[in-house]
């Protein structure tokens, strides 16, 4: 799937889970110098992001599942 479509799906899922959220994509894919195994780097920015790393990981997984990417 093209990375922009993935980004839009994550953005939609993040807003469903967190309410107010902003989705930013960065890294080699956006710069245009990605190679075959390059990962898509995405950050969801929100006031509602929990402070604990474990909770963040669980929330990230929830967003990916809702976006149909996990």
């Amino acid at each position, binding site marked *: 799937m093209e990375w922009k479509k993935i*980004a839009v799906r994550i*953005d939609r899922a993040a807003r469903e889970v967190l309410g107010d959220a902003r989705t930013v994509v960065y890294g080699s894919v*956006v710069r245009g110098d990605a190679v075959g195994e390059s*990962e*898509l780097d*995405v*950050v*969801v920015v*929100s006031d509602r992001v929990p402070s*604990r790393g474990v909770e963040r990981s669980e929330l990230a997984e929830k967003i990916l599942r809702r976006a149909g990417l996990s």
Partner: protein
Amino acid sequence: MDLSLATPEEFESLHGPWMDVYAVVKDGDVEVKGEPRSPGVSASRALRVLEGAKEVLRSADELEEARPKLHLSIESVRQALAYLHLVCVGRGGPHPDLVKALREIGEVRDLPRELEERVLRVARREEAVRLGEVEVSPELAEDNVRDARRVLEIVEELG
């Protein structure tokens, strides 16, 4: 897929120096912004540093409590210290947000040399594991935890 989460404050502190080119999703469209600069430590690692550094600080009490908790914390401590190392050497000095995190518990002007050395030890072990030179073992984890404990002590002394 590497999905990170950040508060607006964390993101803003990384946004300028760490993300040269980025794309923002707005109303279902994707808009690319910025211009490429020289490569360095990736922003995803920087984000993990923030999460890891904070987790290390929070783990201080937990590490003292019980053996199971200690082992549960090993991975996060290893990750945090490995990324701290990357940030310390990757940009010629500590990441400003690491310093900021330390300043939250006290006024800090310079990171102590021992802290950097302990971080480097963990990073070297992690690199050896990554290269297949050594295997992950309880002894290696214990060594990492011993260094991590000292890092936590130093952080506490800074406060």
